Structures are given as structure tokens and as C-alpha cells.
């Protein structure tokens, strides 16, 4: 009978077994520990935390292990878990100027107060496969960069701000609490805080592509990397019942301030404008892409012509989420025989009625 298109409990249970076996691989090899993933795949862990919008290295490592390294699937697992967590407080705005900096570079000034600090970057590694990693090697201990880095490190853009050459970064009047996109639907037009939140959760690949498009002529964008900094920032909350701030821990962040040109408008003199990017963990590509896209989404606010995809709020924000995109694209593998049957009946009706003369009549219409 027609059992081929039906899937019962047994088939699903069997697919779970196969999945578990495939995940584990050869049982003669040692199983991955969450500690190993956290320590040795830290960038994958960071990406899962960003797009899963949950800062928890242990859970992100667990998700990566369960998803066999599939980042989007790991993000999905983490987000579904996140849904069940109570929301008991919002943090105070993070003070990234007070970051314990491990890396800070500026593309705009040769030297900046505090200096350029390369930190742990792959930028100058020439991407040669290091075959010595293939058989395990102990890295000699390295003196960590706490030698002479002034803390806190002043922000590069303050130099321009002091001269009034760059727009001031001011909270909106009344400093409204930002919308929480995990609790409220995205509505348009979306204010900048909402857009930044969406971009921070957005798929890195999508943002990278859009950011790239702004540099290839699909939006008028001539940016400079004003400052990129990475390091540890403390998070504090002010519980209503206490009435004072308490420090609840420290997280690793990457922040990017892009500097863009702006010719001025009727109300504003020519000055530099900002694009902003922020991501959990070490994630420079994501933070930079976010900053480029943030700036291009400000086109309307700054009175610029908006005709490129990266300048269209609805286009950028609605399609930025990889968990939404992945689910909807892959829903095509669910059966559609009811609607396909409807289309099949229709096309047969249309074909049955089509006589040699009718296409010409249609053409006259």
C-alpha cells in the first residue's frame, strides 16, 4: 500500500539512533569533551553564542557537540533552550571604554593613545597549514599581554569627537529601554537600537555578504575602521529591590566603530558618521560586517538616497536570521501533497480546456 510517503514512530526513532551513531563516530576514538570544545574551538563557540544570543560557553559547546559542528544547528539548539529561561533583569549599558583590552587596532591613525595592540590575531599568519598540529604539539607558554597596556584604554574616536569632527553618540531623549526582539515582534520602521539587536543576532554569512555589497557599489559607503577592540567587559544589573548596581560577571566582546563620510545636510555640518558593530566573544569579521550594515541602514536618517539592498530595513532585517531562514528553506522537505494535488488538478483542467485556438486567443488578451 502507500506506506512510502508516511513516516511512523518507528522510522523516526530509528533515525534518532542513526543520528546518535553518526554523531559519535568511531567509538575507538576518544569522545570530545565540552572543555576541549570551549578551549580549542573558541571561535565556533563564540559564533554559536552570538547567533544563539545566549552568553554561555558551556551550553554553546554542548550545542556544537550535539550538532556535530553544524553551527546553524547548534545556534538553533541554543535558542530553543534559551526560550525556556526566565528573563529577570536587563543589564546596565556596557562600558566598553572600560574594557580589559586584549586587542585594539585602528585603521585611521598610525598611532593612537595606548598604541596598536595586535593580540591573538590570525591576520599575519600567512594561512600556511601547520602540519605540526596534526600530531599534537604543546605550545610554549606565552607571556600574556598585560605588560604596559594602559587600562582602561581611551577610545580612538574620542580624538575626532573632541574636535567635533564626528557625530556624537548620544542616547535617545529619555534613554528609552530598547525593544527585546526575542520577546517582541520586529516592526517597521525599526529604530537603530532594534536594528543593532537584530544584526547582533544575525547570521554572520548574511551580514558579511551585505557588508561586502556596500563596498562594491550597492550603497555609498566609504568607511574606515576607526577602532576594533576585543577584551573583557563587566556586566552589571540594578535589581529593583536593591536600587544599586551589582556586578554579575565578565564577558568577552568584540566591538567595531566604523567611520564613514557624510557631506552634511540642512541641519548638520559635514562630519564623520558612525557605523557600529558588537559581538560576543572574539568575532571581528562579524563585528565589522555589522558596523558596515548598520551604517548603510542609516541612509534614510541621514538623508541619503536608499536604493541598495543593504539600505533596505525590511530586506536586511527580515532575512538576517539563520534559524528562521534555515527552518523555512528546509520545510520544503515536508510533504506538500495536498497543495501539490490542488495544483495538479488545476493544471490538468487548464490543459484539458486548451484547444489549438485558445493560446492565440490568450495572446490577444
Amino acid at each position, binding site marked *: 500500500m502507500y506506506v512510502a510517503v508516511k513516516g511512523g514512530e518507528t522510522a523516526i526513532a530509528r533515525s534518532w539512533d542513526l543520528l546518535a551513531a553518526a554523531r559519535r563516530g568511531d567509538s575507538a576514538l576518544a569522545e570530545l569533551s565540552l572543555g576541549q570544545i570551549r578551549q580549542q574551538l573558541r571561535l565556533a563557540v563564540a559564533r554559536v553564542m552570538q547567533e544563539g544570543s545566549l552568553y554561555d560557553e*558551556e551550553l554553546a559547546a554542548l550545542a556544537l557537540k550535539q550538532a556535530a559542528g553544524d553551527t546553524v544547528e547548534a545556534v538553533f539548539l541554543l535558542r530553543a533552550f534559551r526560550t*525556556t529561561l526566565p528573563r529577570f533583569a536587563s543589564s546596565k549599558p556596557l562600558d566598553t571604554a572600560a574594557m580589559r583590552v586584549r586587542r585594539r587596532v585602528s585603521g585611521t591613525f598610525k598611532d593612537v593613545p595606548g598604541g596598536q595592540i595586535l593580540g591573538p590575531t590570525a591576520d599575519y599568519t600567512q594561512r600556511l597549514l601547520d602540519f605540526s598540529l596534526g600530531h599534537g604539539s604543546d605550545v610554549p607558554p606565552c607571556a600574556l599581554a598585560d605588560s604596559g597596556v594602559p587600562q582602561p584604554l581611551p577610545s580612538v574616536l574620542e580624538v575626532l569627537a573632541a574636535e567635533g569632527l564626528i557625530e556624537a553618540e548620544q542616547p535617545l531623549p529619555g534613554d528609552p529601554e530598547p525593544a527585546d526582539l526575542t520577546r517582541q515582534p520586529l516592526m517597521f520602521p525599526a529604530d537603530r537600537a532594534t536594528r543593532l539587536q537584530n544584526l547582533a543576532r544575525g547570521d554572520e554569512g548574511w551580514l558579511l555578504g551585505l557588508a561586502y555589497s556596500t563596498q562594491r557599489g550597492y550603497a555609498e559607503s566609504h568607511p574606515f575602521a576607526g577602532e576594533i577592540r576585543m577584551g573583557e567587559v563587566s556586566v552589571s544589573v540594578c535589581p529593583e529591590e536593591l536600587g544599586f548596581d551589582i556586578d554579575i560577571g565578565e564577558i568577552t566582546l568584540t566591538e567595531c566603530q566604523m567611520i564613514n563620510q557624510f557631506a552634511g545636510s540642512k541641519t548638520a555640518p559635514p562630519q564623520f558618521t558612525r557605523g557600529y558593530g558588537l559581538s560576543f566573544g572574539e568575532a571581528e569579521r562579524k563585528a565589522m560586517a555589522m558596523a558596515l550594515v548598520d551604517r548603510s541602514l542609516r541612509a534614510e536618517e541621514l538623508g541619503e538616497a536608499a536604493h541598495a539592498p543593504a539600505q533596505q530595513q525590511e530586506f536586511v532585517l527580515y532575512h538576517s536570521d539563520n534559524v528562521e531562514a534555515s*527552518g523555512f528553506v528546509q520545510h520544503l522537505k515536508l510533504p506538500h501533497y*495536498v*497543495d501539490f494535488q*490542488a495544483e495538479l488538478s488545476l493544471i490538468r483542467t487548464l490543459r484539458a480546456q486548451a484547444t489549438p485556438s485558445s493560446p492565440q486567443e490568450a495572446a490577444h488578451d
Partner: protein
Amino acid sequence: MTEACHSQWQYNFAFLDENTKRMLRRALLKAVAIPGYQVPFGSREMPLPYGWGTGGIQLTASIIGQDDVLKVIDQGADDTTNAVNIRRFFARVTGVATTSSTAAASLIQSRHRIPETPLRPGQIMVFQVPEPEALRTLEASEVETRKLHAHQEYGLMHVKLYEDIARFGHISTSYDYPVMVNERYLTSPSPIPKFDNPKLHLSPALMLFGAGREKRLYAIPPHTRVESLAFDDHPFTVQRWEQACALCGSHDSYLDEIITDDAGARMFVCSDTDYCQQQQEGKA
């Protein structure tokens, strides 16, 4: 959090926390009060993929109680993978009784079909909706479509249907066929075949629609007027088959076409597996 703390995690009844369920129920009350109007809601991320029923699952989770009897169908059938999976999810996180019988269910979550067995007062249908905006294929911008709804400006859709007739001699929409709800809102009936549209009109059951990815929900309360768009000289019609169901002999149900061998032989059977079963037992 430590690893030990994570491993002791307990899920709440129906997965969602009580505050989220309350938010959903408030949005549902608004939806029922304004039939056909798309209410934005704070859709949560669920452990099943977007596009696979997250909207319907959230609505079901927000209204399901200990005493409910849940039926889940996909394409009309109780035994397709997605239906099995969603039913298993609710069994796991609520422990409520599940059924495949339309008559025995108090709550029916559906993808793409309304059961053939007539619904009765007190039953609730929850539809999984991939695309809640009936005008989306005609107008890509959400800002614009919300304006069109506000002004009850549905000329675009009438023009589209007219153009179909001009080109094909027929309206070429066979599922997700647009309806006017309570003479006010143009509404997507979710991708049910137009065969099922008449079952929405003056139904004694409450119809709830949830779109998780698009973060919109809407409702058709019991006994509400639901009209499928049409023209006086091109009235609304539904699909008909020359064949009867090969299993139960039904002439009045929606049929799936099943290819039975490599030579292209085919048979037609009810897409509603429960209805088909009832018909077969009735004959026996």
C-alpha cells in the same frame, strides 16, 4: 551556570513559561475580537524549525490544558512524520492524551487541511501558517501591506484574480485561496486547499492561526462569515475528482494522488486518514 546545574533542567508544562503563555493568550483575545486581523506577537524560538509549525505549536502550547485531547495532522494525515513529531513533542512536555479521531479531539493542530468530519462547538483548530499576509505575493513590504489592510484597500487582490481569469479563463489559485473574514479583513486561510475554504464559513469551532517566523497570529471566531473572493460571473468553486477514494469509496473528500508503480499507475485516496478509516469501518 555549571554543568551539573544544566543537567537538572526541568521543562515547564507545555514547554513555554507561564508569562509567555499569558502573552500569547492576550494576543489571541485581541485576534478573536478583531476577526482576520493579524496581531503581531512576541514569537519565541521553539525546539522545532521555523516553517515546520512553530506558530501553531506556540498557540497550542498557550491554550492546552491537562484535560485536553490533542490531535495533530499534517496534509490531513495523523501518521506523517511532522504530525508524529509535533504530537510526540506535546506528549513529552504536557503528558496530555492524544488521539487521531477528529470527533474525540478537543484541540486539533493542523498543517494544510481541515478535517472532513464536521467540527463541533467547543473544538479548537490551530493552523500552522507559513505566510500570514494574504497580500505578500502582491506587495513585498510589510509597511505597505499593513496600510492596505488599515484602509481596507484590496484592489490589488481583485486585479490579480481578474488577470488570472483574463489569461487562463480561471482563477489560478488552488490553495491558500484568499478569504474575507467578517466582511472586513482579507485573510490567508493558511495553505489549505480551496476545497476546505467553505468549512471556515460559520464554523461552530474556533479557528486560530499562528505564524511563528512571521510573528503574527489571527483568528476566525465561531459562527463568523468567511467568504472566498470571487466575481459574480466567476463564482468560487472547489476541486472535484472523477474518482472515489480507492480505500473507502468516499466521493466527498479531498483526495491525494498516489503513484503506485514505476509505470505511473496511480490511485486516489482520502488525504484525511481518520475520515477514511471511519468510512471503511462504517462499511464493514
